[in-house]
């Protein structure tokens, strides 16, 4: 029992912290949001530290296989921790204005969502996966709804919850079918055996259909076509902090879970040969199935890339623009996953990290400008680049990274994606991805154009005169990370190891 608890120390600490936060809420009557915020940030720091310890240990199952503690999960758990921290951070700045109340709950919900994310990406058990997804989802629904006290916030919350519940319902139906396929087991490894059996018996469709239904939940979280509809409306309707959290935190853990699911369920279907010589006869059938299924994913990816990037053109609301662009980026990620091999998973994980850094930075920078300009419509941002050099300058850098321009990490990430796609014999997808980068430049640079190239007659008198030193510090850190990460070698080894874990047992 003790070792079990040891294994899930980060989750435990997070849960404990949650309870403390709730207590604090009761004691302080919501008046000490700043202090509790700092506490929450510190808690996340401790959790991050504990997560880092996971890289030292060997992968292990915990709690009777409900949880899987391994490097791969830790990578994405760290990323959602970081996203939560940034979201809290932005939130704190927001919350320094007295008219806002009810803030400790927000912190609580962020932490709960993060815990859900931990479970989502840290399990090989489909029901736990569903529970984690719902935890993350329910907290996000609440967050999306509550924070903005206007119609837009309510509408965003409504859309998010209806759409989220629908897609998780569809996913659950898929899970229930896979449960049957795996001989009444939720364990992915059991399901993989069932999948192989079915494939060998020529029932490819019976594997395919539940898998597609299962995908629904992931597609929803990743905002991929055809489950992307919520993203622009919700991002626009909520606050920047939550939008950033949705765009990075929940997206990345969902990505991790998707990779894990695909890698495990189709492990033998795609590359189980090395691990189990007995399954060699499966190989032909399985690789055929893998190719077809990969093609389906590739098409989804292509449509998402195109959809997100094209629809982002002409957006003037910053968060809406970022929402569409995040649809496009999810498409890039899925493109790489669609290879269904270690290379593809690795590339997707790499790009996810790189995307996460730039995207969080972008949301923070958008916040920093918007909170002072009083608008998130880029048409109101004319010439502000000169007035807020740090925020605007770092926004340029993050956008450059999202476009994939050197010397930013986005370039190296995109390089990784292209290399995986090309090596995986999908040159068309590689070319499409490359060309869509040009399209993405179209809308990203529209913002930059507004910030720098338009001239403003008189300086804006900021609605919030207060400086945002902490945020500025974060922006600097994110900028440095965006540039430094061009050397992907820094994150390569753990990621390689992590995805290797997945695909080779």
């Amino acid at each position: 029992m003790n070792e079990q608890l040891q294994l899930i120390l980060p989750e435990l600490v997070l849960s404990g912290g949650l309870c403390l936060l709730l207590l604090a809420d009761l004691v302080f009557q919501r008046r000490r949001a700043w202090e509790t915020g700092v506490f929450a940030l510190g808690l996340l720091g401790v959790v991050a530290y504990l997560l880092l310890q996971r890289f030292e240990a060997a992968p292990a199952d915990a709690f009777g296989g409900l949880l899987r503690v391994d490097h791969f999960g830790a990578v994405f758990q760290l990323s959602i921790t970081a996203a939560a921290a940034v979201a809290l951070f932005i939130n704190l700045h927001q919350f320094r204005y007295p008219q806002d109340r009810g803030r400790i709950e927000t912190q609580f919900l962020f932490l709960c969502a993060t815990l859900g994310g931990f479970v989502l990406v840290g399990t090989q058990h489909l029901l736990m996966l569903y529970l984690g997804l719902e935890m993350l989802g329910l907290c996000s629904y609440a967050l999306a709804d509550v924070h903005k006290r206007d119609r837009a916030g309510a509408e965003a919350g409504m859309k998010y919850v209806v759409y989220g519940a629908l897609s998780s319902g569809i996913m659950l139906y898929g899970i229930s079918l896979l449960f049957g396929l795996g001989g009444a087991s939720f364990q992915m490894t059991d399901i993989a055996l069932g999948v192989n059996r079915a494939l060998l018996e020529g029932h490819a469709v019976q594997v395919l259909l539940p898998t597609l239904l299962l995908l629904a939940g992931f597609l929803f979280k990743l905002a991929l076509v055809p489950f992307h509809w919520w993203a622009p409306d919700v991002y626009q309707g909520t606050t920047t902090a939550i939008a950033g959290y949705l765009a990075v935190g929940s997206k990345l853990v969902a990505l991790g879970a998707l990779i894990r699911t695909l890698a495990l369920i189709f492990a033998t279907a795609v590359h189980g040969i090395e691990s189990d010589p007995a399954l060699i006869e499966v190989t032909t059938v399985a690789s055929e199935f893998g190719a077809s299924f990969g093609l389906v994913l590739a098409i989804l990816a292509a449509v998402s890339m195109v959809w997100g990037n094209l629809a982002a053109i002409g957006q003037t609301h910053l968060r809406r623009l970022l929402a569409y662009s995040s649809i496009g980026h999810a498409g890039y990620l899925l493109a790489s996953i669609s290879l269904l091999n270690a290379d593809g998973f690795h590339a997707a994980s790499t790009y996810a990290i790189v995307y996460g850094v730039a995207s969080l930075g972008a949301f923070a920078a958008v916040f920093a400008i918007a909170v002072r300009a009083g608008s998130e419509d880029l048409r109101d941002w004319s010439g502000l680049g000169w007035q807020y050099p740090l925020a605007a300058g770092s926004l340029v850098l993050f956008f450059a990274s999202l476009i994939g321009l050197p010397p930013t990490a986005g370039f190296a990430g995109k390089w990784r994606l292209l290399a995986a796609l090309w090596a995986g014999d999908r040159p068309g997808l590689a070319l499409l991805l490359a060309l869509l980068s040009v399209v993405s430049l179209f809308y990203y640079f529209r913002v930059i154009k507004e910030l720098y190239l338009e001239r403003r007659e008189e300086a804006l008198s900021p609605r919030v005169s207060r400086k945002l030193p902490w945020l500025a510090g974060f922006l600097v850190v994110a900028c440095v990370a965006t540039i430094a990460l061009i050397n992907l070698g820094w994150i390569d080894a753990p990621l390689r190891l992590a995805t290797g874990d997945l695909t080779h047992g």
Partner: protein
Amino acid sequence: MGEHLLSAFVALPFVSALFVALLPKQSAAGQRFVAGTTMAAALAFLIGLVLGGFDTARGGLQFAESTAWIPSFHVNWALGLDGLALVLLLLSALIHFIAVIATPRDIAGSKGYYALLLLLFGGVNGVFLATDLFLFYVFWELMLIPMYFLIGIWGGEQRKRAAGKFILFTLFGSVLMLVGLVAVYLRSGAEGVAPTFDIYALQSQAASWMTDSGGMFGMDFSSWIFLLFFLAFAVKIPVVPFHTWLPDAHVQAPTPVSVILAGVLLKLGAYGMLRVAFPFAPDAFADLAWLVATLGVINIVYGAWVALAQTDFKRLVAYSSISHMGFFLLGMAGVAVAADGAAHFEAGTRFNALAGASLQLITHGISAALMFLLVGAVYDRAHHRDLGRMGGLGRVMPRYFAIATVGFFSSLGLPLLAGFVPEALTLFGAWPAWPMHVVVTAFGLMLTAVYLLQAYRSVLLGRTPDACASFRDLDRRELSTMVPLVIASVTLGVAPFLVLDLMAETLRTILAGLPPDILPATSIEITEGLR
């Protein structure tokens, strides 16, 4: 220090840019001084290398250095200098230095301006020196954003559109290059060896790709590589029909930026072709040389013809740039194919073609920069660029008249001025393989004379409109930007060996890396057809 000489050289502008960024906002003069000094120091350093240190008898890399940078992709921080790069670096340093001087002292937001200029300079230097393809690409893209802002912030009325167009076009080319990068990198590791980004290692591998049938969409691998890289660089050169960003960018950019754009940036596309596109796919290059030649001729003739109809002085010069860069392509097509030597004297045709193509980069850099300075000088006085509303400036501005004469006629290809040498070399070199193309090119030369003289006449000769009568002649600052270019133009025209001595061996090395297709000497057939 010794073995990191080039690193220091590449780092210099970036350090200066940082320094400029840290200077107080008000000290425009200080920022200008730092920028100017940096360029001058770079120029002095290069001249020092020419005078001693650089061994012109060697065709390969000198001062090469390499340090691991991103080991997981086998990316190295690898720099190296050869004759071609040295000459282009000299050009770039000179042009950038001139651009700093040509910048008005009271330019708004000077801090950002000079910092961006320095970043641009650093990027250019990096591209010329990088011997690692990944690094090459990084520097290549690094120039993008400074240029965007330089045009977009300090440009004319339509600057936003022009800047956007510039960056979209350029990025379009870049992403194709990126895909090409991926392809060659993966290919280089296909035979069980570690993949590499080393440009020269890739070049030497490229020979084995020729027989590679592992292509996609019905094209062999070599053709894929060639098309990807060729298109990537074609946008920068620019090759018709990817050229329409150039006139807009030129017209909107402030004079110093136009000078850099025409003087240096266009050359990068050509440099990329010489270093990457052609040597990586020598086979496809030889197969598709007809395309290169045809595009070159289209550039020359079409560019000239469009220039003929322009009424905007700067647009005209921009199209003349397009036209002139066609010679590079034509020359390269001459390199790709050697005519059968049976009937013809093997007159070093391919060397002529290559020397013409590469020298064109230098001479066009000089004359185009000069032309844009001349345009800028008129614009500063007249505040418009409409050729129809100018005239007789030769009367009111005698110094301008003298310098403009050199500029126009150098551009036109008058012997004893820089423009002639590469044109003649290119024609000599391309003739045996592409006689029909050369004939059409000759027609383009005619058109060049037509539009340039028309412009010359409208600007300098004829009646002086009242609005132009009070123009002051060139002042000392303007003279100091133009006179070096005039001297360079004349010197190169009279004694091209001053430049070719530096790169002759390098060119020979490049030639060795581009084995030609042996074609029957078509020029003979053509001439027989003519009778």
